[in-house]
């Protein structure tokens, strides 16, 4: 992407919503409210949200929640979800035991 973004741009105040306690990241148990709050703390990219809250950093590595988180962050920032760059994909695609990962054929 690499577009210039001034992080002091006004995105409005954090306004509590009735479904803020809805769990979004099932693995790390992060709620919608925590994600929305993080956006107001300045975490404007999916990578920053992930590093700040651990969304998508659990066992499933965001297989279930990444699309949901993207939608929430986009709405909070008032942009289209397509404008948000998803977090990097990294090996291993599935959890692998250390003894297996370390045993190369």
């Amino acid at each position: 992407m690499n577009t210039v973004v001034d992080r002091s741009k006004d995105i409005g105040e954090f306004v509590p919503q009735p479904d803020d306690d809805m769990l979004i990241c099932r693995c790390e148990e992060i709620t919608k409210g925590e994600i929305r709050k993080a956006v107001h703390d300045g975490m404007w990219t999916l990578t920053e949200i992930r590093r700040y809250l651990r969304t998508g950093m659990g066992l499933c590595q965001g297989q279930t929640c990444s699309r949901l988180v993207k939608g929430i962050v986009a709405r909070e920032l008032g942009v289209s979800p397509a404008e948000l760059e998803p977090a990097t994909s990294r090996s291993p695609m599935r959890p692998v035991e250390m003894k297996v990962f370390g045993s190369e054929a």
Partner: protein
Amino acid sequence: MERIAEHPILGAKEKGREVSFTFDGKQLKGFEDEPIAIALKANGVMIHRYTKKEHKPRGIFCAIGRCTDCVMVVDGKPNVRTCVTPLKEGMDIRTQDGVEAAEIKEGEGA
């Protein structure tokens, strides 16, 4: 939940041999090499684990090894994806609490 004895399109399902395993200390039966989660479901087990932060119950969600919600402690190892791990004779399967095996309540178990 019930196993489907005869399916209108697929007919009768071929099963492996019947094996015994323990769930939180209780003796249960299932078929060899079917996913652990299926054997548990056939025995009416819905709760596979309790989450770490909120202590909320979780069970099968995706059934194909992606979501990792169905993980349990199997033969002492935590975080085993039961929906894609084949059942074997004598397996020790325990409800997971956070990242450890849940304590078996008084009066339960063998």
